[in-house]
């Protein structure tokens, strides 16, 4: 029952509709983008130049929040802690993920079983339940210290110790290396076998092959993992909030947690926005650096 096409009599409006059918499918996304992303994004920049308070509103405009962020010892140390957190977590996680994926890529029996075991923490790691478990493991009389006791080591009170607490928060993330590992494993499987055969004939050692063939061939996935893990690390909230509440003495207060405290504990929303923007710019810079450095070290086969 389709009506006969009358191309000659189409109104300009109908023609426009035909040319832009795709746009109709994007209407929900465009609305969502404008309402829930673009507007909040822009207004958070505006608020960052105000002293917006949830109850008192705005009474002052200016760069005072940014001045405060870069001069106050508390905020500077939180920014540094966040950088430290990211620089410990991301490399450890990626090295672990690649190392295990590399071993799994040999013709290992039960490869699916191992993959599942390594992957479970990635699925559950963000949950409050695991944060609870982490507290039990790293309690002063917890499991980790009991194990260390077997070797005659008196473990610290991890979560109350200024230097170790951050490390425990980092470990929670490193423990979730499974998703990065799955990506590495898929990439390793994609490296053509004849490259290795040719290298073996030429007498290259396994180590040499790893650094001269494997690593270059999987750089796109290394790049992807690096960029996504950096973005995630700078946004870490659940770990510090649930396990340590940012303590002891702010040793595990990361930027997201401080933003939350400013915005929703002390109602200093302007300050919270400024801090979030500082973090955003830091992540954006790192991402831009990663993308522009791509042509020097990332190898795309096609």
């Amino acid at each position, binding site marked *: 029952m389709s009506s006969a096409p009358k191309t000659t009599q189409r109104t300009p409006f109908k023609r426009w509709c035909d040319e*832009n*059918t*795709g746009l109709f*499918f*994007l209407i*929900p*996304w465009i*609305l*969502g*983008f404008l309402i829930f*992303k673009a507007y*909040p*994004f822009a*207004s*958070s920049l505006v608020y960052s130049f105000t002293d917006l308070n949830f109850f008192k509103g705005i009474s002052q405009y200016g760069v005072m929040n940014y001045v405060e962020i870069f001069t106050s010892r508390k905020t500077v140390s939180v920014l540094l802690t966040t950088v430290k957190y990211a620089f410990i977590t991301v490399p450890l996680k990626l090295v672990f993920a690649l190392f*295990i994926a590399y*071993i799994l890529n040999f013709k*290992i029996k039960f490869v699916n079983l*191992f993959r*599942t*075991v*390594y*992957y*479970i923490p990635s*699925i*559950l790691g*963000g949950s*409050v*339940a695991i944060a*609870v*478990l982490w*507290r*039990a*493991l790293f309690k002063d*009389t917890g*499991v980790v210290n*009991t194990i260390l006791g077997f070797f005659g080591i008196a473990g610290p009170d991890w979560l109350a110790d200024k230097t170790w607490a951050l490390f425990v928060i980092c470990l929670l993330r490193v423990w979730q290396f499974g998703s990065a590992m*799955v*990506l590495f494993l*898929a990439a390793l499987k*994609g490296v053509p076998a004849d490259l290795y055969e040719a290298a073996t004939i030429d007498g290259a050692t396994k180590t040499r092959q790893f650094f001269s063939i494997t690593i270059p061939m999987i750089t*796109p*996935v290394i*790049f*992807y993992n690096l960029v996504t893990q950096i973005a995630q690390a700078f*946004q870490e909230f*659940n770990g510090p*909030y*649930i396990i340590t509440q940012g303590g002891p003495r702010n040793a595990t207060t990361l930027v997201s947690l401080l*933003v*939350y405290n400013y*915005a*929703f504990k002390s109602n200093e*929303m302007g300050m919270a*926005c400024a801090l*979030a923007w500082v*973090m*955003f710019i830091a*992540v954006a810079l790192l*991402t831009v650096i990663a993308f522009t450095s791509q042509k020097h070290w990332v190898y795309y086969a096609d």
Partner: protein
Amino acid sequence: MKLSTAHKIGRFFQYFVLILVGVIMIYPLVWMVGATFKSNAEIFSGIGFLTANPTLQGYIDAVTQNYGGDISIWRAFINTYSFVIPKVIFTVISSVIAAYGFSRFKFKGRDMLFGIMISTLFLPQVVLNVPQYLMYNSFGWINSPFYLPLWVPTLFATETYFVYQLVQFMRSIPHDLDEAAAIDGCGPVKILYKIIAPMLSPSLVACGLFQFMWSCNDYMGPLLYVQTPSKYPMSIFVKLSMDADSGFNWNRILALSLISIIPQLIVFFCAQDAFIDGISAGAVKG
């Protein structure tokens, strides 16, 4: 063919590392299961899984605790799924519609919109939190009995990660089928749900599964937008219980934590291939 000694040592080393790391990875969870059956006095006295005197007291305490009748473990489960399920469904539907628009049509400005979509992948939620909170506050959505702030945005394909994933998957479906359908008189909407969606169903399932896991784990959303104890979802309920008695009642809080992740574990074990394929498929092309 005889394996050389060096090769055998290599093999041994590979399995040794895999098993050692695997045990370290999984033992915390195994210990947790064991600990839920121990008495509080016993939990931290050793690191073993088994106990000589198993007790169900932890579980009994976990399921009976109800903070003055306002919230119990069952209530918390119902609360969680009452926003997680709509969130999953709406995310999948809205994302597939947006992905269809991006991947199957050419129109002016498409590449620009696509670029915007990709850049929102890198937009940290923490930058948006304050204005979103103020906006939902002005809508009267804070503490909404229907959890509006937690799922309404997903109607609008705001979970960009899934849109991006589905665009990648959709590009790998050949155009011949939709062209044939178009010749047979199928409109674009019909092509989407008769042809594209069925062919994409494994990816749609994967997206739904990931969104399910992430939404169940989500802590900050409920923390900001749910304030009545009787409406608390599982994530907040577990945190609340932990704060209430992590000093002494460890078997109760560990039992509660374990129960809280059982549905996720079941979903994971039923669909683990979908998870692992889902994570491998989208990223590699980048």
